[in-house]
């Protein structure tokens, strides 16, 4: 049983023009076994929340805390956060030319697990997980994300989720850009991981369609850089019906791009 507590988190993005506050006091607690859907309009700061927790250099946390079992992850480097049990499935996975997927996965697993996985077991483990996600074995020798389609990149993010076995997973718009089949494969991958592991999930999304595959325990509406309403599944149904309009107004609208 682990707990991820986000307390009054404020964060700003640094650009050439200066610093702009995006997160304006986010409070959220996620426990192992819970799935929290974070839903909000474009520009509401959902992705910033995920990057701020993961430690992206472009975002500066100006106040607040993110505690993983009481320890402030904001004091940790990006890689330390990952080793502590955080995982971010990115909306736009990055291409790393010349670094093979297999080398990357093994390096990551070695770091996160604290020792190199035994080669024989590892090969089988990777192969099995790839098969579940309908990833052809040839991808192992390709450069990380290079030339992958949107759907292929997302499958590989979920592959990493399965191999790195985090305590908390943030899935940032994992559903965007996926066709119906790919969405099902990716959702199945997430569901299998959550069913077999004691993990807490933050599922960040703009649309409700992924919630037909992955069933959240909690739904939060994110607007204007903070959570403006929380509820159960019924909140997602309401959003499906009437969209984000009233929340954008409520947030006093720095949102909506």
């Amino acid at each position, binding site marked *: 049983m682990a707990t991820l507590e986000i307390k009054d988190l404020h964060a700003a993005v640094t650009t050439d023009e200066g610093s702009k506050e995006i997160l304006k006091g986010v409070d959220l607690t996620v426990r192992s076994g819970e799935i929290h859907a974070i839903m909000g309009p474009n520009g509401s700061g959902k992705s910033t929340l995920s990057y701020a927790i*993961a*430690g*992206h*250099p*472009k975002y500066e946390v100006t106040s607040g805390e993110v505690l993983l079992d009481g320890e402030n992850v904001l004091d940790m*480097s*990006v*890689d330390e*956060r*990952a*080793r502590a049990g955080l*995982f*971010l499935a*990115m909306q736009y*996975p*990055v*291409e*790393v*030319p*010349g*670094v093979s997927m297999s*080398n*990357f996965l093994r*390096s*990551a697993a070695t*770091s*996160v697990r604290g020792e190199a996985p035994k080669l024989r077991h590892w090969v089988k483990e990777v192969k099995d997980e790839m098969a579940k996600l309908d990833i052809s074995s040839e991808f192992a020798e390709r*450069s*990380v994300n290079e030339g992958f389609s949107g759907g292929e990149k997302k499958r590989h993010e979920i592959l*990493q989720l399965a191999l*790195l076995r985090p305590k908390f997973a943030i899935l940032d718009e994992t559903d965007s850009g996926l066709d119906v089949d790919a969405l099902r494969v990716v959702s199945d991958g997430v569901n299998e991981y959550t069913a077999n592991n004691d993990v807490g999930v933050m599922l960040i999304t703009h649309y409700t369609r992924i919630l037909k595959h992955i069933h959240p325990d909690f739904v939060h509406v994110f607007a204007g850089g903070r959570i403006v309403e929380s509820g159960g599944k019924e909140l997602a149904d309401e959003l499906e019906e009437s969209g984000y309009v009233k929340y954008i107004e409520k947030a006093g609208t720095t949102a909506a791009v």
Partner: protein
Amino acid sequence: MTVTEENTANTAAAGEAVVPAVSRGERFSSYDVEAFEVPGGREENWRFTPMKRLRGLHNGSAPATGEIKVDADAAPEVRIETVGRDDERLGAAGTPSDRVAAQAYSSFTSATLVTVPKETKASKPTVVRLSGPGEGETAYGHVQVRAEAFAEAAIVLDHVGSGTYADNVEFVIGDGAQLTVVSVHDWADDAVHVSEQHLRLGRDAKLKHIVVTLGGDLVRVSPTATFAGPGGDVDMLGLYFADAGQHQEHRLFVDHAGPNCKSNVLYKGALQGDGAHGVWIGDVLIRAAAEGTETFELNRNLVLTEGARADSVPNLEIETGEIAGAGHASATGRFDDEQLFYLQSRGIEEEQARRLVVRGFFHEILMKIDIPEVRERLEAAIEAELQAIGV
């Protein structure tokens, strides 16, 4: 015909826009050193080179005081000879095109000739080790590699040791021959080496010419490729890694004077430390008669630390529209924060993430070096370079 062009020299000391005053094809060449004026450093050909560090190679004030030592580990099929200046085979691949090359041509006393006999496939790579004359000494040399018609071989020219050295290296590739050459410049810290390399490809010949520059105080390698008949295909690959204070300059020229030849240039460099300087010049000329030419050249530089500098200048001159394709690209960048963030977000420590990125950067070239011993040695050398600054 397609002509593509990409971001030419962005960040980190972009070279000024260069409009050659005259076509690259007009450059003067001669075997006689006195036919060249002493360069002052402002000439197009010398403007990036720190002239003082040439130790007089360019102005006649550096008489030979020593010799280059040549050791060869040759494939049994390959013949190695030491010949005098008067050997009539010498000079077949090209004429010196700058004063230092002409000085070397006027000054060498004996030349090393490596011959792969016709219709012979060498059973293993031939390694010719060229050791510098020693610290404070100057030497001039000459090497010719001859692949006779339909020969196939891999040759490594391994430059090591100390001193000041200028030479011409010729590659005479016969009709239908296939040759891979790797010129490794793994000099000691004090060494200065200026090398003009002349690549002459016969009809349907294939040459993979790889330059690897790691060591030395100043290394300037100028490979020029020319085609003696149609169907020639040259790959010119380069990998360089400059540390603090090192000047590594590669000046390429591909002269497409006849029809239906191919050239592909790919050079990649990493630079780290104060005063590390990489210079890459890529001149490609497609003359009016060179119909059906296919050419592409690419240079990428990765600047790893503050204080390092890369200049990259591609020039493409096209005198006929009847070509298969021509393009060039050049870019200089620093570590990509997004790549590092992605790797670190998977638990990989920053230092290891940086290494992965640099190894990945060079991977494309290393994979094309199909001599395992050389590739492994280079991989190890790159690791050592990275270790040195704790990247």
